């Protein structure tokens, strides 16, 4: 009995630990969403919530329905596999109400270099330029038509143009 009396403080500390664990279990029960772990290590309800969010992209077919002339031009050029909304942004609202919602005019000086700015890590076959040297800040559509960017030199539209000149490491032509 004396042994228990002299170890009383140890039991008190043990009680503090037990209380701590109970508080943790209680807080966990309140804070962890009920649907957590339903399908995997995430909140099951998140799937329905994400599915219920409005769709922002119209999809390629929606563009083709109205802009077949632009699509024909695009099919003939190197950007044939680039989706319209990759450059023009999500256009679901425009597709729903083309009269009142118009896509913003794109600044090609900013847009094109997202893909075509020279970078040593890009494959050498990918058209890339050091934009500061190549165009001196002029918008790319001064010379190139973005839907079919190769410049027609009169010989062949497929020929290598300044825009597709390979660049040496460091970005100089």
């Amino acid at each position, binding site marked *: 009995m*004396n*042994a228990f*009396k*002299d*170890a*009383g*403080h*140890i039991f*008190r*500390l043990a009680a*503090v*630990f037990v209380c*701590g664990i109970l508080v*943790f279990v209680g*807080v*966990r029960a309140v*804070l*962890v969403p009920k649907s*957590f*772990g339903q399908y995997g*290590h995430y909140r099951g309800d998140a799937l329905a919530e994400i599915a219920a969010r409005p769709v922002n992209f119209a999809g390629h077919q929606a563009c083709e329905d109205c802009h077949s002339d632009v699509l024909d031009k695009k099919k003939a050029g190197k950007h044939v596999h680039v989706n319209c909304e990759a450059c023009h942004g999500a256009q679901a609202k425009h597709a729903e109400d083309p009269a009142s919602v118009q896509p913003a005019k794109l600044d090609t000086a900013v847009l094109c270099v997202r893909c075509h700015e020279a*970078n*040593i*890590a890009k494959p050498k076959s990918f058209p890339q330029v050091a934009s500061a040297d190549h165009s001196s800040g002029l918008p790319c559509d001064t010379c190139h038509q973005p839907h079919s960017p190769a410049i027609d030199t009169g010989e062949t539209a497929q020929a290598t143009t300044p825009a597709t000149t390979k660049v040496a490491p460091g970005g100089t032509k």
Partner: protein
Amino acid sequence: MPGVEGFMYPNEIELQWSVLIVLYPFLTGLVAGAFILASLERVFQVQEVKPTYRLALLTALAFLLVAPLPLQLHLGHPERSYEMYLTPHKTSAMAMFGFVYLWYLMAVLVFEIWLDYRRDIVVLSQSTTGWKRMIYRVMTLGSNNISEHALHVDERVGWVITLIGIPSAFLLHGYVGFIFGSIKANPWWSSPLMPVVFIFSAMVSGIATVMLIYMFVTWARKETIDMRCVDTIARYLLYTFIIDFGLEMLDLIHRIYESDESFRSLDFMVHTKLYVSHIVVQILLGTVTPITLLALTQVVRLGEMARKRIYALAGCLTLMGIFAMRWNVVIGGQLFSKSFLGYTTYKMGLVTREGLLMAIVLTILPLIILWGLVKLLPPWPEKNAGSLAGAAPAR
């Protein structure tokens, strides 16, 4: 591109792990090392190091409290970090580490410190006044029993806790090495020796820290440094350091002999970008020099003042060397391309969330916490021996 040589993949150009991730294993290492030094007295009965026992425990606690802060500052959403405890992913070593940390903090360090200080806490709860008295009274948990038998119970339980604490300390720091050692995509890190090297370097840095803090605090209190104690700590520091250096050299020789496809790239990095931090600071100044200095005190009979100066110098160089080791592991592992064809540069921010200023603050913060802990729980029993009816004498 400035700072980039050769070919780097785009996501390798900027380093993801900054100086704070260097600081994190450094701080946890000090915790593990300080605790293992404390266990020398408790479990292995090395009486000479007794003057540093309590100081080592408080040092471990102060550094452990700060250890997660570098990680918090690195996180994009630190306010979500508690979710690691609520919904831990069992396959994530980092998530499991949260529990190792909590176990080590609460079940080992706080418990052991409380048991060791219980007599002092009870005495102080009755001899102090005001808010201090309130704090001590809460810390007694309402039990004022400090009879000889009750303290004997504390002693026995404390011994068991220390015994459990040693593998826990190994687990705490072994984990840090494990995290790096298990990244198979990075040849600079991927090595089964990594956890072992981290544990021994942790012991080295922790022992050096406690030795320096003990010498400084004793000098600041205008007391006499117990040379028998410091000599013993320095001897253990030397032994541990030799094992640590041996393991690191074993790893190095193994890499050189194996010479896998990454070797030429890593060898080039060590001789260029990492030359100063790895060869000069870590190996020459931070390892070979302190080992030589400590070995000198073992083979040459030196006066007390000379030994003190050598220990202080060797201790500082050791900490610098271990920090450089963490730097070379964390930063070095991100400087080369996984294509083995290029190298990038680490640009450390100054006054940024993960910059130099924050690293300095986080290095000083544990010392401030330690100062507070020492004020609250003085490690010197003679100062607060006190006398209470029914109290056993101070140990």
